[in-house]
């Protein structure tokens, strides 16, 4: 699955990406996970199936959610607890939940 994480600078989520990739590899998954900044989103969005945004840019959720819906992408704000704990496993599960729904 192709998952794009978005936050203000793409920095904090890039650490989360590393954790999610580790989790994915351990489960033998073949996921492509990437983090970018809000400003880079338009450049990258087409390549991904699911868009997850960091809870710290919740104020951008409406705009990004509409963009994702228009392009038929799954979209959610990363669960705040999973984010705070830097829990790659839970965030990966959240992404998969979006794809299935």
């Amino acid at each position, binding site marked *: 699955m192709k998952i794009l994480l978005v936050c*203000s600078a793409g920095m904090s989520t890039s650490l989360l990406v590393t954790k999610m990739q580790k989790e994915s590899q351990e489960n033998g998954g073949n996921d492509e996970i990437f983090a970018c900044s809000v400003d880079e989103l338009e450049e990258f969005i087409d390549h991904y199936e699911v868009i997850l945004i960091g809870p710290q840019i919740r104020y951008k959720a409406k705009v990004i959610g509409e963009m994702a819906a228009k392009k038929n992408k799954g979209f959610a704000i990363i669960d705040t607890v999973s984010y705070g704990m830097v829990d790659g496993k839970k965030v990966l599960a959240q992404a998969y939940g979006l794809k299935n729904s």
Partner: protein
Amino acid sequence: MENEQVAFTIILHAGEARSHALEALKAAREHKFAEAEASLVLAKKQLIAAHQIQTDLLQAEARGEKKEVNLLLIHAQDHLMTAILAKDLIEEMVLMFKK
């Protein structure tokens, strides 16, 4: 809490604060001042939570408990400072809209 969780929690609270502050600004622009005030109260609560973590870190350092300062923690500080400034400026801007 692990080091990186400390940084992520600061980013989380700072980001929530910034989101609430921007909501307050939007409400003020639409002349919904009660809503703007309520959002600012929420922003302040989030900043206090973020600030508390920072204070804990400072106090731990004063006690001689050395924490590793990494780029992520600096980034968290950046988020917090930005959020504090957003809240301060938006408080003023809400007053300007009221005039």
